[in-house]
């Protein structure tokens, strides 16, 4: 284990270090993993990738998504904890990084509180007539959107023309 030497005395003044506990309290040797740890983690990640591909061939109905996300979460936590050294990092770094997933979860939670309970998007209620692109006055002839909608309208013809 190599150690970063203690801070060379500051040039102007030599007395007490600045008292940021977390920077100076513990000793300075940052953890260095052994090669076997890394190789082990890599193999586990490969195995999990094969697992997630294998599992996708079976249909578990609603649980498909949960299984896929669970496997991905395990892989992610391996990468985070070992490759990114979060296990041996200061608590502040750990708190900040893991709390970002918390705030992302809040975004999911409330966006889906709106979507799932909305009633008309998920269960196909009466939907108004499909929108007509020519109602958008900005998409008059000569604009790229106008060309695209012409293409989109007679795409069956294009499809057959390409012989697929």
């Amino acid at each position, binding site marked *: 284990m190599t150690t970063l030497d203690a801070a060379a005395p500051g040039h102007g003044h030599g007395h007490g*270090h600045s008292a940021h506990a977390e*920077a100076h309290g513990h000793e300075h040797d940052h953890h260095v993993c052994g090669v076997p740890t890394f190789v082990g983690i890599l193999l586990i990640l490969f195995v999990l990738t094969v697992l997630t591909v294998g599992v996708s061939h079976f249909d578990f109905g609603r649980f498909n998504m949960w299984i896929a996300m669970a496997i991905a979460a395990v892989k992610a936590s391996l990468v985070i904890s070992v490759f990114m050294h979060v296990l041996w990092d200061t608590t502040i770094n750990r708190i900040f990084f893991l709390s970002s997933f918390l705030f992302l979860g809040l975004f999911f939670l409330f966006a889906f509180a*709106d979507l799932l309970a*909305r009633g008309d998007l998920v269960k196909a209620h009466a939907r108004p007539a499909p*929108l007509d692109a020519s109602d*958008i006055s900005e998409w008059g002839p000569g604009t790229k959107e106008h060309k695209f909608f012409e293409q989109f309208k007679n795409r069956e013809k294009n499809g057959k023309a390409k012989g697929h």
Partner: protein
Amino acid sequence: MTAISATSVHETHAERKNYLNRDSSFMSWAGTLDHKRIGLMYLTGVMFAFLVGGLFALLVRLHLWDATVDVATGVKSGGLFEPGKYNQYFTMHGVFMVFMFIIPAIPASLGNFALPLMLGAKDVALPRLNLASFYLWLAGTIMAIASMLLGQVDTGWTFYTPYSIYTQKAVVMMGLSVFVLGFSSIFTGLNFIVTTHKLRAPGQGWFRMPLFVWAVYATALLQVVATPVLGVTVLLLGFERLYHIGIFDPQFGGDPVLFQHFFWFYSHPAVYIMILPAMGIMSEVVSVFSRKPIFGYRLIAFSSLAIAIISFIVWGHHMFTSGQSELALFLFSFLTFFVALPSAIKEFNWVATIWKGSISLEAPMLYALSFLVIFAIGGLTGVILGTLNLDIHLHDTYFVVAHFHYVMMGSTAMAFFAGLHYWWPKMFGVMYSRFWATIGALVIFIGFNATFIPQFVMGSMGMPRRYAHYVPEFQGYHQASTIGALLLATGIAIMVGYLLASLFGGKKAEGNPWGSPTLDWTHTSTPPVLENFDDQPIVEREPYDYTLILEEAKQRVQNA
């Protein structure tokens, strides 16, 4: 960069070089890494954006002096501009004021200047990132001005789709400038979090830091966690316009309400990025000018963090009528009231600080007192808007316009002026005229209320927002509000006037004119030297301990 020459130690105290007059070459400003100079550069840029935004506000108010529409025939009459031009002006007013003035104003100018001083640090933790943040702000501002002149964006600062997708205006370029300004804000926030964690003075635990540092720290959390979502929103809007990927465009099956979720997930924390630093300045100014320790230090500190956290779960109250599900409305309305509580607690704490203090009505205190009055009104009207039933009637009317001007212009800008007047002697070593400052504060206070109280009443009567032509019965309110706006503009002109006059002719300011106990006033010269402190200050006492200040005042009175 010039190395610290050994000779600096021998200069006599009088003509010792401070951070302003040590080097006046262009590169020493343009390439500076000194947090104080970056703070000043931000200050000039931010004031420019404020004045330009204010100009657009005046154009809008003057147009609305007499711009009616006849209900029966639908024919419009009066008004200075075409409706299209009016839409561009209120959009520019929104974009300039929100993205270029109010979000960077307090953290990037006053925060950059004062935070390291208050922490007893030589500089912010990542000085180069600090300079990059300023240049990103500059690039964003130039891009926004360019897209304003070339593309006349008229979508409002909210860029709601699908209108922002269809309109043939330079929305992509404006989006790019907002993206760049977002990164500038992230870098400032990131810098302050690292500085507060790593560069505090010895002995300065978390509860011995001034409350301004707490507030700017909570703001930095919001800047770092919320701004990226604005980045992805603007990115997707750009792809939407260029490649029509259809995520927000109903023509391709997209959902405009999803855009509103994306936009407000950032923009509600953004309104707390605006108000939290103002609350930080309030805690400083109220305590210093009552010469009394702040009341409930921990309560204020924790309520700053509480606001930062809760602000992530209330964004739906901007979208009550937008077609969300009833469950989402229930949750958002319920949680909105919890975010209102910490603000109310802070207001009570400030008033409790002033209670039985020793109040001196200097200029910063005048602006702080008008903050307290205006923020109370802004907060209480926020409770009305948070109530689901009332918001259905009041949403997108002038009631909302008046509410957010009360908490943005009235509170954040007023606190920004208070902070400006509080740190002005420390920044420039000169003192502004107290007489003109009092007049400026009064005219701004009266002009502000004269502008926005009629808008409250007009809004609850049903006057919709962003209308170039209104039905005639609202004309009286609009005219009263325009008179108020002109008064407010004169007040701001007076303020800018006497502040600039103090730069060129003001009398010198020395030592600690306000008697403030925090490190930035007690341990640094006025204006401070480049390294801020001759030797590293050690913090042994509570942040708001006035015993020394009172003894000095007693000495002065005895020998005077």
